[in-house]
């Protein structure tokens, strides 16, 4: 019975959901606007973690990278 209960409440954890972890990328390059734009909507908004599947570390790096890329006019703040 105890085993059954454990199974019932076992959390689903998808292994290797973060694409940067899977590709073993330690440092997200802010100059690669093409890759960054794949994780943004057509309007230029960043995808959430839920939507992108990034881990917390890479999502933070991604956030910073997008902001640098926007500042250097590699990516738009707001796309038309």
């Amino acid at each position, binding site marked *: 019975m105890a085993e059954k209960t454990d199974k019932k409440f076992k959390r689903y954890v998808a292994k290797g959901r973060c694409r*940067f972890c899977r*590709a073993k*990328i*330690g440092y997200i390059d802010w*100059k*690669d606007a093409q890759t960054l734009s794949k994780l943004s909507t057509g309007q230029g908004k960043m995808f959430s973690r839920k939507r992108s599947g990034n881990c917390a570390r890479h999502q933070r790096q991604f956030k910073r990278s997008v902001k640098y890329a926007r500042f*250097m*006019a590699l990516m738009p*703040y707001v796309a038309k």
Partner: protein
Amino acid sequence: MAIYEGMFLLDSGRAAKDWEGTKALVDGVLERYGAKPILRDRWDERKLAYTIKRQKRGTYYLNYFDASGDAVTNIRRDLTLTEGVLRLLILAWPDDAPLPEKIEVKRMMTDDDAKAGLFGGEGRGRFGDRSDFGDRAPEEVSEEFAAKVADVDGGSS
């Protein structure tokens, strides 16, 4: 002393006419404050995502250099006031990341990686990657309903 990555957005028209002279604007300031260049070259010339100082295109000059923190403050101040430099970004290079071998426009993932499911396609994860949905498709309406609507509109006007 630490390693810094400096990206300088230069006036494209000026760079096309005299690249050496335009590059020297940046190099001169770096040398003045004792920054030791490690790697430097033109990165790319492209259309800007938005206009900066009425410029729609820009030439990016990427520079890796070794300098002190005080020097970086001075370099930033001087180059902000330099004509021909539209924008600059100087970041400390992380200790654990390896320095690039040459200056080039490089992608983190190749197209083969994308095909392998790292971007789109298979292996999208539990929730999947949904790009922007775009405009809503026009709704299909039966002729009968369209005629009814036309009648009502005609009557009201």
